[in-house]
């Protein structure tokens, strides 16, 4: 039995070059599907990776209760002072490690289209650079507090026009000087511009108000203590979230759009490709009907024949899947772009991420397509009455 299987399969595989045309079509078909599958999901993976990079579990974000994003939150200066004194926050010689921040957006042209888009502009205090401790200036220098100076995230600098060290940016009545570029481990802040909050507040008529307070926890366990202290304080109506939870929720909408579309496209295309694989394998089997009948007349059982067709189909789809995966990886992995984050109403930059897990998933998918595509023709090949089949042209 086993030797039969090996023999028939060997014959099949060795005869692929003779049917190069239809085999290529099958491979290309599967490769196309896998390429699309990987490409669409790598967008979601990329956004996800950016959000993960932003989620330092020891960082807590405090906003007005009921706000789902910094954009719509608001905290007065008094509330901020109360928050800064709350227990559970890490402290150093100069006080608690908290960073009150003001988050606005400005209209600035995108490089890729030349059309204006919302760049997030974040006003911070000097403490921000202690709280966001992964952040480092990679070009130029940090802002001098009290001056109209800006540092730009690496990703923002790549997506928007003219964000180079030394350029002047005029927004409304204010002219800012860009003095440096920063990196923050690939996090979402790299899509932003940062400046002194005390300069930003009057420019946006925000008085002494902020939108959020970032706080570094004294220890990973002190989150509950901080949260309880804040929510039970009658002076405050705020909510506290760990940074990973916040950033996870921030791109929910975006991820849902991408994944819904990805699923719809993936399923439709997958079924289409299975149909494509079926007809390809069917043609391959049909053109060898006599050959198969001869084998069966010689005494080969139907199981080896079925298996040989299946093996061929799977082999072709694996080749297709590998091609598609490699092309997707070469073409899209690391491709940087930006899109609208619907929740914060502003641009978020990310890179497509073709992860090994994604590739494995795609390969599995292509094998399933091959199996499904090969099954019907194989079944047919095995069930053909030998006499009829021998007579077929």
């Amino acid at each position, binding site marked *: 039995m086993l030797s039969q299987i090996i023999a028939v399969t060997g014959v099949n595989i060795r005869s692929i070059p003779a049917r190069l045309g239809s085999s290529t079509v099958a491979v290309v078909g599967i490769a196309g599907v896998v*390429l699309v599958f990987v490409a669409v999901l790598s967008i979601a993976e990329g956004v996800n990776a950016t959000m993960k990079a932003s989620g330092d579990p020891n960082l807590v974000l405090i906003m007005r209760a009921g706000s789902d994003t910094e954009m719509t939150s608001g905290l007065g200066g008094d509330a901020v002072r109360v928050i800064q004194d709350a227990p559970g926050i890490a402290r150093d010689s100069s006080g608690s490690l908290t960073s009150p921040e003001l988050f606005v957006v400005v209209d600035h042209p*995108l490089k890729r289209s030349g*059309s204006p888009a919302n760049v997030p502009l974040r006003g911070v205090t000097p403490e921000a650079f202690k709280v966001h401790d992964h952040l480092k200036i990679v070009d130029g220098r940090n802002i001098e507090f009290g001056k109209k100076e800006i540092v730009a995230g690496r990703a923002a600098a790549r997506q928007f026009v003219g964000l180079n060290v030394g350029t002047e940016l005029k927004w409304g009545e204010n002219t800012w000087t860009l003095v440096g570029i920063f990196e923050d481990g690939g996090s979402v802040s790299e899509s932003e511009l940062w400046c002194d909050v005390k300069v930003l507040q009057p420019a946006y008529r925000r008085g002494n108000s902020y939108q959020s307070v970032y706080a570094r926890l004294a220890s990973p366990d002190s989150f509950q203590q901080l949260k309880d202290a804040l929510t039970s304080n009658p002076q405050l109506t705020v909510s506290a979230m760990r940074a990973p939870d916040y950033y996870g929720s921030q791109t929910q909408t975006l991820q849902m759009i991408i994944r819904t579309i990805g699923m719809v496209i993936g399923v439709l295309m997958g079924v289409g490709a299975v149909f494509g694989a079926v007809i390809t394998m069917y043609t391959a089997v049909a053109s060898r009907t006599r050959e198969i009948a001869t084998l069966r007349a010689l005494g080969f059982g139907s199981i080896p024949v079925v298996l040989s067709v299946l093996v061929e189909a799977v082999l072709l789809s694996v080749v297709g899947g590998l091609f598609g995966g490699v092309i997707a990886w070469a073409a899209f992995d690391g491709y940087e772009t930006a899109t609208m984050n619907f929740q914060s109403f502003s641009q978020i930059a990310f890179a497509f991420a073709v992860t090994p897990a994604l590739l494995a998933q795609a390969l599995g998918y292509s094998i399933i397509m091959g199996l499904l595509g090969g099954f019907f023709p194989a079944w047919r090949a095995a069930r053909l009455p030998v006499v009829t089949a021998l007579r077929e042209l």
Partner: protein
Amino acid sequence: MKFLPIVWRNLMRRKFRTFFTVGAIFFAFLLFGVLMAIRAAFSMGVDMAGQGRLMVIDKVSIINPLPASYEGRIRQIEGVTDTTHANWFGGYYQDVRNQFATFATDPESWLRIYSKEFELPEDQKKAFFADRTGAIVGLDTAKKYGFKVGQRVPIQGTIYRRPDGGPWEFTIDGIYDSKIKGADKTNLIFNYQFLRETIPERSGFRDRYNWYVFTIDNPDRAPEIAAKIDAMFANSPSETKTNTEKAFVSDWAKQVGDIGKIMMWIVAMAMFTILLVSGNTMAQAIRERTNELAVLKTLGFGDARILSMVLLESFVIALVGGGLGLALSYTFITLTGDPTHGLLPAFYFPTPSLIAGVVLVAALGIASGFLPAWQASRLRIVDALRRN
């Protein structure tokens, strides 16, 4: 037409193959339909934006509201026929996940300017104008949450807050619909005066609007009028940016960016692949019958007749598969609408795309049948008969 039975017989002789070929084409065109709807959705309804409507926002950012006093000054400009204004409210119903576009506006002027986009019965309109705490809501949102006319609904704001922190109670005075294909029927609009009461004077945000919309007498004058308005407010604390609504929507869509474009490309490629596979099979089905075609020629069938018979066969396959695919995707997209439930309201099948789909179906039928048919019709009978 006389030869339809023979074409039918040919198709049925390998039922299995015919079925799967039709199936592959069917899925390719189903995909095509979905793809076109996604494209329409990502362009955010730019095709629907009014040419004769212009918008004014703060030059620095739309989040900076413009003073209410601007409205009168815009209205005085020659060529401006009507104005309205809106504030982005960011409302949600019960849970923050149930968000839909909510604006505070001036009801009468808004419904004058957007009479086609917001259609509702006269009595509902009247009730809305007379009710300071009233709101009108789009058909899609009303259906989703079961809002009825006359019902009081609590809507929580993400940007504006009531002093007590509670939700705003609106009376649904009307439910709007629109005959425009792909129109956004998810919005809730209400009277700005109701919002105004809750904005403290000292905040500096009272009597300020996020954007103005105005209509002009002649769309060709849009650039000139826009320039005039921007010049009027230049060097003030709130400088403006004026442009056509279409330009704003298009810029907004571009912010979403490459993603739509990339999806278009990759899916177009996938469709091409499926069509390649099925086209190849269809051609193969004819190629393997070359000697039969030769027999027909021996019997006196002319080249043209053979060509048309073969073309008819491939046409039938393309038409059945593609036609069903387009029809199903059209019905599906029209019936279910936005699959993300409110995030891509402009999810619809645009008519030009439908025409493009039909052309594609025809092209597939011709392309896959023509080459083998042409080869067959040119064959010398003797050679063809000898072929096996």
